[in-house]
C-alpha cells in the first residue's frame, strides 16, 4: 500500500534535486536555449566572488535569526500571559489562527498597501501621531529590511503562541505548588521549572520556524520584490530573481544549492540539539 506513494516521494524530491545540482554545473540562459553548455564549478566560483550573493547571505542570517528570535520571545511571553487567563483563551486562540491561515502573499500585500504606505498606511499614520514622522517604510533599504522582518514575525508569532500555549497547558500544577511552598519567586519558578520542561517544545518550534524563515518567499516578494534594489533579498529570493528575472538558470541553481546545503546543515544541528535535550 505504501509503494506507489513512496515511489512518488522519492521521484519527486530526489530526482529534481539531482537535476538541480546538474543544472548548477551548466550555464543556462532561458532566452537562448541553444547556447547551454557545461561549465563545471564556474557558477560556484562566480558565487564566491559575487557581492550580491554575500549581501543576500548576510541578510538571510540576520532576517532568520531576528524573526525566529522575536517570534519565540513574543510567542512565549504571550503564551505565559494567556495561560493565566483560562477564560479568555478561546478568544485569543481564534484571533491567533487568523494570521496563520492567511496566504503569505496576501499578508505581504496587506502590509505593503494598507499599513506601510507613506501618508495612507495606518502604521505610517501611527508613527506620525507619535511624533516619529513619516518614513518610506519599504523604500528605504534599512527600513525595508526591518519591515520585511516585522511582517514575517507578525504572521508567525501566533503559531509559536499556540504551540507553546498547548505545551504549557500540559505542565502539572503540583510542581508549581511545591515551588511556591518552598517560597520560590516567579522568576525562579520560570527558569527552574517551566523552561526546562518545555525545552523540547521550544526546540521543535524553533526548527519549524527556522526552516520556514529560510525559505520565506511570497510575503517578501509581495511586499518589496526583493528591493529596494537588492536590500531585502534573502538567498531564496536571489535564486528566484537570477533564474526567472535574469534567466540564467545555471547560476540560479547554484544559489539554490547553497541554500539547500545551509538549510540542511541548520536543520541537522537543531535536530542534534533536540535529541541531546
Amino acid at each position, binding site marked *: 500500500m505504501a509503494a506507489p506513494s513512496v515511489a512518488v516521494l522519492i521521484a519527486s524530491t530526489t530526482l529534481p534535486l539531482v537535476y*538541480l545540482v546538474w543544472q548548477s554545473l551548466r550555464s543556462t540562459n532561458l532566452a537562448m536555449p541553444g547556447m547551454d553548455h557545461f561549465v563545471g564549478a564556474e557558477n560556484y566560483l562566480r558565487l564566491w566572488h559575487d557581492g550580491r550573493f554575500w549581501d543576500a547571505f548576510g541578510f538571510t542570517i540576520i532576517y532568520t535569526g531576528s524573526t525566529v528570535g522575536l517570534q519565540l520571545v513574543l510567542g512565549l511571553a504571550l503564551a505565559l500571559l494567556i495561560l493565566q487567563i483560562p477564560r479568555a483563551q478561546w478568544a485569543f486562540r481564534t484571533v491567533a489562527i487568523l494570521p496563520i491561515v492567511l496566504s503569505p502573499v496576501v499578508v505581504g500585500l496587506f502590509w505593503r498597501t494598507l499599513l506601510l504606505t507613506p501618508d495612507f498606511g*495606518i502604521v505610517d499614520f501611527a508613527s506620525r501621531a507619535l511624533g516619529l514622522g513619516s518614513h518610506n517604510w519599504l523604500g528605504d533599504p534599512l527600513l525595508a529590511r526591518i519591515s520585511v522582518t516585522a511582517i514575517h514575525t507578525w504572521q508567525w508569532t501566533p503559531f509559536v503562541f499556540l504551540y507553546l500555549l498547548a505545551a504549557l497547558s500540559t505542565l502539572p500544577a503540583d510542581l508549581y505548588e511545591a515551588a511556591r511552598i518552598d517560597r520560590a519567586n516567579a522568576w525562579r519558578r520560570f527558569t527552574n521549572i517551566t523552561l526546562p520542561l518545555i525545552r523540547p517544545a521550544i526546540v521543535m518550534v524553533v526548527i519549524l520556524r527556522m526552516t520556514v524563515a529560510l525559505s520565506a518567499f511570497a510575503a517578501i516578494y509581495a511586499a518589496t520584490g526583493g528591493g529596494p534594489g537588492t536590500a531585502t533579498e534573502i538567498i531564496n529570493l536571489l535564486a528566484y530573481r537570477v533564474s526567472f528575472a535574469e534567466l540564467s538558470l545555471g547560476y540560479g541553481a547554484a544559489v539554490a544549492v547553497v541554500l539547500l546545503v545551509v538549510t540542511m546543515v541548520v536543520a541537522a544541528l537543531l535536530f542534534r540539539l533536540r535529541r541531546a535535550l
Partner: protein
Amino acid sequence: MVVAAMLLSIWVVPILWAIITSLKNEKEVLAYPPTVIFTPTLHNFHEVLFGPTNIVSYLTSSIVLATSTTVLTVLLAVPAAYSFARLKLPAKKPMSFYVLATQLVPPIGLIIPYYLILNRVGWLDSYKGLVLIYLTFSLPFAIWLLVSYFEDIPREMEEAALIDRASRLQAFWHVVLPQARGAIGVTVIFVFLNAWNEFLFAVVLGGSNVSPVTVAMYNYINTEQTQWAQLAAAALIAMLPVIALGIAAQRHIVSGLSAGSVKGVTRR
C-alpha cells in the same frame, strides 16, 4: 488582562483595517487622517465579484487546484501512512527520516527543476502539471501527520478482526479507518490550507490557464495601483475559505500543530 488585550490588538488591527478599507469607497480610502467612521458600501465587493475584471475565474482555479490536491493526497497518504505505522517494513526508520527531510527542502531548490521538467513534458500551465507538483509537497506532509496518528491507534482491535479471519484490507477499512477520522480531518484541513495559499509554485508553473487567487492578488497590485478598497475586498474574498476553515476548525488546527512529536509545516 489589559496588557494581553493590547498585545492581541497587534494581530487584530491589521485584519480589521482590511475589512474597514474594503467597505470604503476609493475617495474615502485616501482621506487623511484615516477615517474609522464613514458610510460603508458593498460596491467594492460587487466590482470584485461581478465587475469587468472579476476574480471569479481565479476563485474557480483555486477551488479546482486545492480540492484536487486534497482529495488525491488523502487517497494516497492514508494507505501509505498506515503501512508505515503498522507493517514491519525493513527500511522503516530511514524511510520516515527521509519523509521528514523532504519537508526541509526549500521550495526554490525544486522550482527550477520542476519548471524545466514540466516545460519539457508540456505540462506547464496545466492542472495535471500543477496538481502533480502540489502533490510533491502535500504528500510527505500528509504522511508525516498521519503516521503519528496511526501509531497511536491500538493494534488490539485490528488484531481481533484479523483473528476473526478478516483480511488486512478489511481490518483497515472497517476497524482502523473510523478511528482515524479525526486525524484525516486534520490532514484535510492542513493540506487544503497549504494548497489554497500556495504562491511560488503557482506563479512560476502556472499561467493563463491555471491562475489561482494568490497570483491574482499579486496582479492587483501591479495593474491597479490605487484601487486599494478593491484590493482589500478581493483579498478578503480570496481568503474567505481559509479564514472560515480556520475559525471553524480551530481546535483541529491547534491539535494538528502539536500532535505527537512531529508537526506540520505551513506554506511560506
